[in-house]
C-alpha cells in the first residue's frame, strides 16, 4: 500500500509506530481516532495537524509528515488530551518524544521559535543553573530575531523589583552542568 501524497512512502510498514511505542511506553496503536484529544485541545486552532491526526500518522508510520508538523511544537503540554483520552494514551509523552526526534533530525522549520526557545532556555540553565529571565528574553530574541519582544515589560518589572539587574548563580550550578554533561556523554555512548 503506498501513500498517494508521496508515492514512494510505504504506509503502515515502517517501524516508526514500534519506535514511538517502545520509546514512550505508550500504546499508540490502540487509538481508535475518536478525536476527543483534538476536541479539547486549547491550541488546536493554530496547529497544522490536530492531535488525533498526529497519532494517526504515527500509526501509519509516516515519520516525515509527523516530525514536520507544527503541532508537535505548538502542543502546550497542558495534558487536557491525555486526561480525557478514552484509551488512556499519554499523548504529551508521545509529543515529547516527537519533539526530541524532530530536533535531532533538524525538522524545526514548522514552528522554529519553539526549538529556539528550548535551546535558549537550556543554555540559560547551563549558564546560571536557574532561570534568569532577562537573559532568557535576550538570548531568545537574538536567536529568533524578535529583538524587542517582551522588552516592554522589563522597565515595569524592574521598578517593581521583579527582575534582578544582575543574575544570581544557583549554588547548584556546577551540579546542573555536571548532570547535563553526563547526559550528553550518555547520549554519545
Amino acid at each position: 500500500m503506498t501513500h498517494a501524497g508521496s508515492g514512494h512512502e510505504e504506509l503502515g510498514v515502517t517501524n516508526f509506530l514500534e519506535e514511538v511505542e517502545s520509546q514512550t511506553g505508550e500504546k499508540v496503536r490502540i487509538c481508535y481516532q475518536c478525536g476527543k484529544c483534538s476536541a479539547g485541545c486549547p491550541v488546536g486552532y493554530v496547529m497544522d495537524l490536530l492531535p488525533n491526526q498526529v497519532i494517526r500518522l504515527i500509526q501509519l508510520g509516516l515519520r516525515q509528515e509527523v516530525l514536520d508538523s507544527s503541532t508537535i511544537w505548538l502542543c502546550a503540554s497542558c495534558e487536557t488530551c491525555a486526561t480525557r483520552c478514552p484509551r488512556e494514551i499519554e499523548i504529551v509523552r508521545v509529543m515529547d518524544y516527537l519533539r526530541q526526534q524532530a530536533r535531532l533530525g533538524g525538522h524545526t522549520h514548522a514552528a522554529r521559535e519553539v526549538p529556539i526557545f528550548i535551546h535558549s532556555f537550556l543554555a540559560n540553565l547551563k549558564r546560571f543553573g536557574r532561570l534568569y529571565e532577562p537573559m532568557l528574553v535576550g538570548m531568545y530574541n537574538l536567536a529568533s530575531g524578535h529583538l524587542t519582544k517582551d522588552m516592554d515589560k522589563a522597565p515595569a518589572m524592574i521598578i517593581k523589583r521583579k527582575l534582578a539587574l544582575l543574575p544570581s548563580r544557583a549554588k547548584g550550578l556546577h551540579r546542573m552542568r555536571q548532570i547535563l554533561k553526563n547526559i550528553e556523554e550518555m547520549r554519545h555512548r
Partner: protein
Amino acid sequence: MRYAFYPGCSLESSAKEYRASTVLVARSLGIELEEIPGWICCGSTPGHMSDKLVGIALPAHTLAAAAKMGTEGVLVSCASCYSRLRAANHAVRASEAFANQVALALGERYAGDVPVYHMLEIVAKAAAAPGFEEKIKRRLKGLKVASYYGCLLVRPPDITGFDDQEDPQTLDRVVAALGAEPIAWRHKVECCGAALAFTHADVALKLSGEILEDAKSSGADAVVVACPLCQSNLDLRQRNIERFLGIDLEVPVIYFTQLVGLAFGYSAGQLGLGKHMVNPVPLLKRRGIHV
C-alpha cells in the same frame, strides 16, 4: 511540621511576592520551611520537551538533595515545578531501567520516595483543621474570587493526584475559609498557554484572555492562583491581552498565599501586593478590606 522548601526559579525573581507571602503564611501556620541546599531549576516544560532524561534528572537531583534533609517532604509553590517533581518521582518508580539512567546522570541513586506537596495542599489541610478560624484577623467578606487551578496542579491525575481534574475544589475551600466567596466559573482548569508565552504570544494572550473574561463575566472581583507562571501570564500580560482582544479587563490576579496572608492580618507591603501589574489594593478597599 518541617518541610524541605523548593522555591523554584520564578520565586527568586518575577514572583518574589509569592515567596514572601508563602513564607509568612507558613510561619503563621507553624510550618517550618528549610530551603533545599543547592537546588536547581526543574527544567520546566522546555526540560521535558528537549529530552526525557533531562526532564527527569533535573528535578530528581533536587529531590535527592531534599532526601538527605529528613523532613516531612518537599514543599513547592509553583505548579509547574510541582508537576515536574511529581513526574520525577513517578518516572524513577515506574521503570528500574530508567531509574538507572537517572542515577548515571546524577552520579547518585534516587529512589523516588520523597513526598512532594504543593503549598496549596498544606494550606487547605490547615484551613480544614481546628484552630484556623482563630488565625483570621481580617475576614475577606464580600470579596468574590475565581479560583484558578490551571493545568499542572490537576493534570495528569495519575501524576499529581491533587484533586478532581475537571472540577477541583481545594482552592475554593481555602478561599471560603477566609470569608471570601469562591464563584462558580468555567475556566478553572483551562490552559493559560504559559508554555507558549514567549514563542507564540498571541496564543497565550487568547487563552489567558478567555480565562480572565470568564472570571469577570462570572462576577469575580479577582482571580486567585497557585502558580507563578499563570500569574505572570494573567497579570503581567494583562495589558497586552486587553490590547490584543480589544477589551477592558482590569482583573487583579492574586496568589492564594497573599489572600491567606491578608486574612491573617499581614500588610499589603509585607505580602508584596504592590508588585502586581493590576494593583489589587483599590479593589480590596472598595470591598471594605483595609490593608
